[in-house]
């Protein structure tokens, strides 16, 4: 489930971090999980490359600004007491639990965190192809030829994309594609 995902485990208690990491490796096939003592140990670049942050509740509160801008990717962990103090809407992992309970909790938290992140727009593969070509400036006819589909199908794909993403203009499509890495920024 966590194969090829960059995961940062951030906690001042090293042993806690190591424990979480081995749990993630054993139960969820995580192969790129690292433990850090503070978000300050991460460079700006590294920070942006992580797909998921697991952070202890005390550090979450201490570095709230840092995590706020990445809140879709953050799971907070702590004991039952800290559950009350942490921001209520953030996904929370209670680590005062047996291995089985931990696995269950993690499984549902990870599913929603990763699902949320990957399917933020839920375009189909075909729709993604179409929007990429629109963003490259191709006309409907050219898109139809490139993909080997009918003009009518291209138009209906475009309508669906527009309504899924709430985008109204061609410039908007282009910008969407650039911001989501479908076309190069240059």
């Amino acid at each position, binding site marked *: 489930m966590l194969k090829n995902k960059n995961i940062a485990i951030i906690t001042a208690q090293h042993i806690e971090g190591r424990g979480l990491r081995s749990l993630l490796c054993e139960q969820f096939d995580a192969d790129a999980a690292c433990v850090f003592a503070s978000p300050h140990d991460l460079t700006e670049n590294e920070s942006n490359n992580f797909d998921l942050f697991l952070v202890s509740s005390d550090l979450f509160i201490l570095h709230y600004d840092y995590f706020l801008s990445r809140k879709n990717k953050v799971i907070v962990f702590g004991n039952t007491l800290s559950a009350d103090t942490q921001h209520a809407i953030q996904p929370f992992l209670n680590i005062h639990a047996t291995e089985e309970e931990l696995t269950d909790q993690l499984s549902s938290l990870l599913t929603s965190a990763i699902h949320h992140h990957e399917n933020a727009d839920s375009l189909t593969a075909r729709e993604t192809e179409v929007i990429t070509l629109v963003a490259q400036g191709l006309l409907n006819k050219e898109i139809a030829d490139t993909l080997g589909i009918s003009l009518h199908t291209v138009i209906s794909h475009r309508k669906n994309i527009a309504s899924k993403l709430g985008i*109204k*203009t061609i*410039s*908007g499509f282009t*910008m969407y594609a650039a911001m989501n890495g479908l076309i190069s920024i240059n």
Partner: protein
Amino acid sequence: MALILPDMKLSEVILHHYVLMPVIRRFNIKLGFGEKNIKQVCEEHQLDSDLFLAVLNLYINHTYAIDRPLTPTQVAATVDYLKNTNLLILQSQLPNVERHLHALMTTSFSHNKTIGLIHNFFAEIKNELLAAIEYDNTVRFPYISQLIKNELPAKAELPDLQPAQDPLDEKIFDLRSMLMKYLTGEADQNLCYAVFFALYTLENDIKQYNKVCDDLLNPAITYLEKRC
């Protein structure tokens, strides 16, 4: 509050619909109108109260029945209003978006390339907006003022503005939603909010500008052209 009517106090109307603040500014009404009702304020400022009410109500999505088409005097007043709208866009709204966007670029671009995309998209919008305003000032408004004075050469026609691909307000809408939905990495949230609101105000004003044109000005122009 429902329809805005002539006997309502202007202050109460504005307190209820604060979005109308810029509208009265464009009609050159200064603050400090006390307890006067709309009719009195209009008389004092020599404004056509029907037109004033039509524009106010249009702005809050109500329809105020006005004799259509507008009279030539009302057309001239509408053009003045639109000129003021453009002037405010140039003098305060565009610079406002730019100031915040520039600050955002300065603080965040080095580590956040998506800010650059927002910046470029806005530059495109700005160019189109400037071209549209230029067209108004050099082609459309002079044409209308000749039309009102009945000085148009026979069979004169208003040349079209090079049509843009998509309406400007929709482009701004898209830009705003991109900023909201897909801004990744770190960026100063205060500045992002400032850009968002500045864009929203601009988008709304452009929308309202188009509504005044579509609902009030253009039918009158068509009528006056036929009269020629």
